[in-house]
């Protein structure tokens, strides 16, 4: 077994050595460096294109999916090795994709054979960029209240209504979408899960500006959009189970937010540089306390994630605790940016200009206010903890 893994590690190392372009061996600096793939995507460089093509062919953009659907077919141990080997040479992810992180797992679990064959391989190769159609103007925290009606027309459905907070709605090639297929049933039991091409006639997309400025979020309007029946996934009116399954995935992704700045300078260090200290003690004693409280929580949270991972490895299932991770990670991230604003003082207020990179800090700070809203508000996460972990009534 160990020998097999050693052989595998060598294969991976050799393959990466031969196939990962030099330019792709450095961490992603900004949003612009990320490769999202899709029909309309403009590659930043030939290396970026090549890296996606090679990783896609190998199935390593979705390394643990079955090979029959284009995936890498790796087991847990092999996946770990691949990640380690990529980290070793600083290889950046070849593809960022909601298709891989969200839709794929749902299709593997709920899709029929034709759907898996049709959609999964292009996702692995990064040929289709997916947008998520969940929230509606009257269905935010109460997501199951979504109304967009899809009416049965025999061999297809006709969809109307609208979606909001659709990430990259204007760049998406296809959408996976929750729609209302039975308006008389209790709200959780009349929802279905459908896929459609964003080029289908009747779809209009409008980007949303946030308090922080431009955003990837969009509003999407449907006017008599025709969806072939083969593109409905899972059982009719049982789409809510798929939605919940996907939301769990999304939550786990978001919960690492609080830690994703691991590479960033620790706040205390930044404060010493900007504000200054005497005998190694920050010159602003109250800010010092605030930073210490934050860093204690940050370190405790990192250790808790480490412990959760070790428990999962030891066979304990994570369950609803992911809700608490989402809650705490996003609240931490908000605190971090509040403190960063405090530390940078007047300089943190700039909104335009080269010195501030067009007000990056101020905009990032404002953007974090959404962390505890998107993907389920903090209050909803606490409801889930109270109900599913603590077993409180109601």
């Amino acid at each position, binding site marked *: 077994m160990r020998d097999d893994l050693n052989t595998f590690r060598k294969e991976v190392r050799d393959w990466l050595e031969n196939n990962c372009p030099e330019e792709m061996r450095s961490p992603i600096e900004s949003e612009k460096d990320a490769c999202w793939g899709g029909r309309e995507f403009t590659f930043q460089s030939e290396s970026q294109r090549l890296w996606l093509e090679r990783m896609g062919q190998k199935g390593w953009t979705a390394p643990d999916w079955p090979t029959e659907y284009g995936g890498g077919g790796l087991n847990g141990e092999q996946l770990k090795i691949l990640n380690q080997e990529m980290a070793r040479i600083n290889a950046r992810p070849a593809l960022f994709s909601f298709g891989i992180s969200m839709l794929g797992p749902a299709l593997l679990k709920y899709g029929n054979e034709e759907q898996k064959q049709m959609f999964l391989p292009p996702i692995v190769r990064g040929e289709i960029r997916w947008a998520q159609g969940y929230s509606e103007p009257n269905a935010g925290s109460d997501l199951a209240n979504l109304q967009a009606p899809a009416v049965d027309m025999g061999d297809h459905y006709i969809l109307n209504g609208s979606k909001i907070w659709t990430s990259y709605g204007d760049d998406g090639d296809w959408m996976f979408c929750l729609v209302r297929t039975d308006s008389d049933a209790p709200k959780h039991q009349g929802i279905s899960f459908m896929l459609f091409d964003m080029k289908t006639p009747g779809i209009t997309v409008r980007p949303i500006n946030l308090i922080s400025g431009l955003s990837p979020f969009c509003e999407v309007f449907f006017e008599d959009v025709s969806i072939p029946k083969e593109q409905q996934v899972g059982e009719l009116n049982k789409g809510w189970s798929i939605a919940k399954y996907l939301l769990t995935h999304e939550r786990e992704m978001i919960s690492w937010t609080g830690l994703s700045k691991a590479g960033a300078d620790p706040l205390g260090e930044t404060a010493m540089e900007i504000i200054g200290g005497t005998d190694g003690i920050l010159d602003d004693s109250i800010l010092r306390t605030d930073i210490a409280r934050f860093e204690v929580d940050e370190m405790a949270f990192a250790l808790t994630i*480490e412990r959760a991972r070790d428990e999962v490895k030891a066979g304990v299932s994570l369950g609803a605790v992911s809700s608490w991770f989402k809650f705490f990670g996003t609240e931490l991230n908000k605190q971090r940016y509040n403190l960063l604003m405090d530390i940078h003082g007047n300089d943190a207020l700039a909104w335009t200009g080269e010195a501030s990179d067009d007000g990056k800090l101020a905009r990032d700070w404002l953007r974090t206010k959404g962390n505890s809203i998107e993907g389920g508000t903090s209050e909803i996460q606490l409801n889930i903890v109270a109900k599913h972990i603590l077993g*409180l009534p109601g």
Partner: protein
Amino acid sequence: MALVLNEEQTMLRDAAKDFLNNRAPVSHHRQLRDSADGHGFSRELWSEMADMGWAAIIIPEEYGGLDYGYAGLGLVLEESGRTLTPSPMLSTALMSTSALILSGSQALCELWLPQIASGDKLISVAFEESSQHRPAMVDTLAEPEGDGYRLNGTKLAVIDGASADAYIVSTRSRRGEDPCEGVSLFLVPANADGLEIKTTKLLDNHRVCDFQLDNVLVSREQLLGPLHGGCTILRQTLDRGRIGIAAEMLGIAQETFDRTVQYLKERKQFGVPIGVFQALQHRAATLFGEIELCKSVVLKALQAIDENSDEITLLASLAKAKCGQTANLATAEAIQMHGGIGMTDEFEIGFFIKRWRALNQQLGDSRFHLARFARLQGY
């Protein structure tokens, strides 16, 4: 090391849980409080605990110990926090034992460790000289006298000091630029001439003592570790004690939280269990998370001691600060959510906040450790 318990540790925890629930639940603590006992804990119970091996968990086998490691000791302390079981676990089995082992003074280890392991002797560490935790402030003097030393000064708030057979005392043996340089540790028998001991009963019914050293003579053999080199041993001992206290506070937080969640499901007002109210649900859910953070921090810190990691000091302050804050929140919320009954002496929930208050203060409160954490991180 993975942040999960191994099989041996799980067994030890289960055994501790069983024993403490059967032999020393919270009612045992109440009984002691209401009796004429002057120690704050039961010597008979300590003998039983020693028979279970708990006094010897971190003692090396060569001195009659189990060499089970601090992670094991931490589990017993955590469980004692749940039952509020008073014992010299922290003062003797953790701190004094650590000081002896860390000192490398073989003769003293040979003399004392087997007697600690068997539960026969108790030792407390005496390091405070003011109402605040200032272990680097050492004004008790040690001056050469014949073949040994003459000690003069005052020590305060010595944990379990009323019952100790001996004290490990920090003294100033030389003055220099660095207050840490020139500290020496001595092992002073409780019956030494010139030692005047005054006992205080604390709010949690534990006993501490203040003592005056008036020309107390000690021999060279009673020096623990190198002359003038006691500061590091003391710091390492205190860090181990801090992590142990954090484990006990974690037990306190978990027990009060479990009892409170249960109460939220049972107590009815307005015709429904009060646990349906979102104002209470969200506070309970938040507290759940804070306790999860403490579990990780305590386990990591205990493992760090066993691995002799260079992060022990940082993790000790992290654990003491975080668990102090969380046990504060847990015990205060427990009283608030229990309402009036939580304020009564008849109900046990209020006992936990008293123990928390003492533990939070001892070996440095949350503020002390936040400041220390910041200093260690360079700001």
